[in-house]
């Protein structure tokens, strides 16, 4: 039959950002399937790289997809499975995390992880002076976390700002809370916190408030663009003055572009890199989507 089947594969949402991504994917599926009756989008999510490889195999063997939109759990392990899909002649769109081998994907849509770290550090430098202390709460040990962290540290380097310590808080509120509690017990003088992620930031703020150390111009920088965070930036919160964008809607963008590749006449292949914009009270309104779960 002449129906266009497009598989969309991404990790099972286990935190808010991914849930936002999932929400955007589902919205895009509904929108695109309504718009083009001959397009069928099949969304699958997987809890680990192996399962994602299996799911991609199943998309080929069962759904016989014409195109694959994939947000790889990790780059390396999924390179081969995606390459196999490529060999069936399907169009490949890769989202967010690049594959480890160039040239497999026809379309690439991504956020910018090093940029996120760099922008965060640049903001720190504008607010802090030499000799000020910050602590860093990192995500789950992964390439993404490394890219963000390394870029952040490179940017901070030489500014005279002390990074007292960095611990993994796994993009998780509970861990953010506990790690921050311990940082607070350990370091009497902290001027700012880079939490890297809005979920961690929520835990950090709770710990700060509990310890009563949320005054004195202390501030927290998260990341990703959670709607609650953006709202509080709009409201002029002192504790979380800014946020760095890492849009979960990138999957929808990728789906749009992929469908377009079948529907439009012009060439759509290429790379679409979304910026890591610094969200401040001035521009926050532009990034505020109250209906999204994230």
């Amino acid at each position, binding site marked *: 039959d002449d129906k266009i089947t497009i598989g969309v594969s991404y990790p*099972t*949402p*286990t*935190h*808010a950002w*991914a*849930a*936002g991504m*999932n*929400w955007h994917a589902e919205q895009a599926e509904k929108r695109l399937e309504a718009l083009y009756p001959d397009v069928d989008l099949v969304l699958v999510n997987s809890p680990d790289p192996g399962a994602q490889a299996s799911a991609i195999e199943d998309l080929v063997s069962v759904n016989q997809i014409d195109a694959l939109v994939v947000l790889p759990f990790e780059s390396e392990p999924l390179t081969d499975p995606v390459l196999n899909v490529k060999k069936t002649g399907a169009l490949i769109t890769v989202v967010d995390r690049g594959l480890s081998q160039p040239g497999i994907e026809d379309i690439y849509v991504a956020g910018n992880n090093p940029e996120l770290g760099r922008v965060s550090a640049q903001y720190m430098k504008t607010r802090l002076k030499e000799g000020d202390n910050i602590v860093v709460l*990192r995500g789950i*040990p992964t390439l993404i976390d490394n890219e963000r962290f390394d870029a952040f540290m490179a940017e901070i380097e030489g500014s005279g700002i002390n990074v007292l*310590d*960095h*611990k*993994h808080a*796994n993009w*998780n*509120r*509970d861990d953010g*809370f*506990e*790690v921050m*509690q*311990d*940082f*607070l*017990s*350990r370091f009497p003088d902290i001027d700012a916190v880079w939490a890297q992620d809005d*979920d961690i930031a*929520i*835990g950090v703020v*709770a710990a700060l408030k*509990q*310890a009563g150390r949320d005054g004195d111009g202390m501030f927290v920088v998260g990341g990703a663009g959670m709607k*609650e965070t953006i709202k509080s930036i709009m409201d002029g919160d002192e504790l979380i003055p800014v946020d760095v964008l890492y849009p979960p809607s990138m999957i929808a963008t990728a789906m749009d572009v992929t469908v377009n590749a079948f529907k439009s006449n012009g060439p759509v292949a290429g790379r679409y890199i979304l910026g890591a914009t610094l969200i401040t009270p001035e521009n926050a309104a532009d990034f505020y989507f109250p209906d999204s*779960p*994230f």
Partner: protein
Amino acid sequence: MAETTAGETKNSRLRNFDFKTMGPAIALLILCIIGFSLNSAFLSEGNITNLLTRSAFIGIIAVGATFVITAGGIDLSVGSMAAVIAGIMIIVMNNAVETLGTGVATVLLGCGCSVILGLGAGWVNGFLTTKGKIEAFIVTLGTMGIFRSLVTYFADGGTLSLDFDLRGTYRPVYYEAFFGLPIPVWVFIIVSIAGWILLNRTAFGRYCTAIGSNEAVARYSAIKVDRIKTWTYVIQGLCVALATIIYVPRLGSASSSTGVLWELEAIAAVIIGGTVLKGGYGRIGGTILGALILTTIGNILNFTDMISNYLNGTMQGLIIIVAVWLQRADWGRKSSKE
């Protein structure tokens, strides 16, 4: 897994026994000394309070797990159960805000809801294990998956957050202190005492031990084995519900990552405390120390940057093994022949 208790002579058992009882306490003491020597802030009031409060979650759940394990069962679903209870509790409370307002009534409704869910979930585990005659491991592995995916479903993969105004009402349950101790610690203390009495001083506790030792003997001794076993899961569910009630006000949210691996932590606390995994011998006191040990390990690792972050798990694993080895090994006597 209870190999150390088999085939030993009485004498060695008696001597071991004391060590077994003291073992977890000594391990905790050593940890505290290490923590203090790394950073004297370890023994600051604030840190001790944090430590105790954090232990409360795992500790309360582990008290329930002590009953299940003593009676020869196992419950892998507790972490997911906590997550789903927290999720439903938040949904219920958020919905009740319109009718009941943001006062204590809504919070009480949420707590009641949590207790009912805990009892119900525990009962389901118990029922499937006893009447369904399915291995506890399978039943609770299954419900673990079910609960976990339900909370993901309710939260749409993201996070369920408590109504902001309600959070103000509920917050003190986690953050306020009462006679110098945070409320979660009080709950932990009360649950521990109640658990200790129940296990060591009541017929129910005796029955749990008997069932874990030898189910046939228990049946021939007029013990309603299925009923008692079901009760252990119900108690476990209740403990999870209580832990959830003090967990929710902390950050006011629940997500699919809430309570991940709590089951392993709870079981580890129980076993570190000296309870025998195959059943028949349970120690609430040990369980509490086990929970404190586990929390302290995490706390200490946050207090030092000597160790690569990536190796936290290695340290944790090593410390757990060494802590248990310290209490299991035969000190001061030649090891019994294989």
